């Protein structure tokens, strides 16, 4: 093992992590504020009963929220019990983990503005496509 190279790698990695600490603190603060201030019942009241608009609403809600994906399963299950369509629930749980509107500023700073914006927009659209495809497959087979 090349000790000099290892030391350089440690230094570079440490510097890289220290640089992004302000972004991490900001994201964690933002997640805490939003999670505490917006009640869960608010999201449930958003659905209209139309599978097309509900899938968009589901994807939008998943995009806005952050946290452990397990929370999205619990919320998704609650939505299902309240007659929200499985397509809307699927787009909700998919966008929860693939889209992060709140993280866009951090993603822009580290990976580039155009990449961050387009990645989130496309992932938002794909959450709806994935939801329709998954449920079409389940319906057919």
């Amino acid at each position, binding site marked *: 093992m090349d000790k000099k190279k290892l030391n350089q790698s440690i230094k*570079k990695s440490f510097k890289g*992590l220290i640089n992004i600490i302000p972004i*991490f603190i900001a994201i*964690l603060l933002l997640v805490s504020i939003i999670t505490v*201030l917006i009640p869960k019942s608010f999201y449930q009241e958003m659905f209209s009963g139309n599978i097309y608009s509900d899938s968009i609403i589901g994807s939008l809600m998943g995009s806005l929220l952050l946290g452990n994906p397990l929370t999205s399963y619990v919320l998704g299950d609650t939505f299902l019990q309240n007659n929200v369509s499985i397509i809307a629930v699927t787009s909700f749980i998919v966008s929860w983990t693939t889209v992060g509107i709140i993280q866009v500023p951090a*993603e822009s*700073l580290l*990976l580039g503005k*155009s990449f961050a914006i*387009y990645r989130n927009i496309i992932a938002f659209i794909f959450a709806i496509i994935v939801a329709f495809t998954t449920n079409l497959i389940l319906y057919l087979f």
Partner: protein
Amino acid sequence: MKKKNGKWIFLIVVSIIYLATYFIFNDKFGLITNMFLDLVIKIIPIFIVVFLLMVLINYFIDNKTIKKTMADKSSKKLWLISIVSGIISMGPIYIWYPIMKELLDKGLKYRYIAVFLYNRGIKLQLLPMLILYFGIKYSITLMIVMAIYSIPQAIIVEKLSTKYKKN
């Protein structure tokens, strides 16, 4: 310079919002603070793993290695590595940004970053819970569909990102 200031501006803006909650939602301020501290504690072990991974990447992967692999335009190996590593990766998405930046700086294409980030949506470690809530057929179908769609998604993201950059 702008990028260096960006992170501090972002932190200052969020800190102002946080302090404002003390005056506007005084009863919730304690809950917000507790949740923030809880998240910080939870994220520390992942931070250590990320640091070790960054050291390994910096040690073993250099610009030449990436460029050499990239030379094969239809690099199936890179697609597979990006998908699998996305699926098995843990922790919140933003913890992976520094590693992705590191790889991007070394010449990795946007499509592999996009496919990795998308496949992070597939949570293998949470599969039992997904099955518990939605059933095995639904869970497996959803995971396969997500993994397949992650490829066209990544190609579109790369095309749009590079087009936007050129304009």
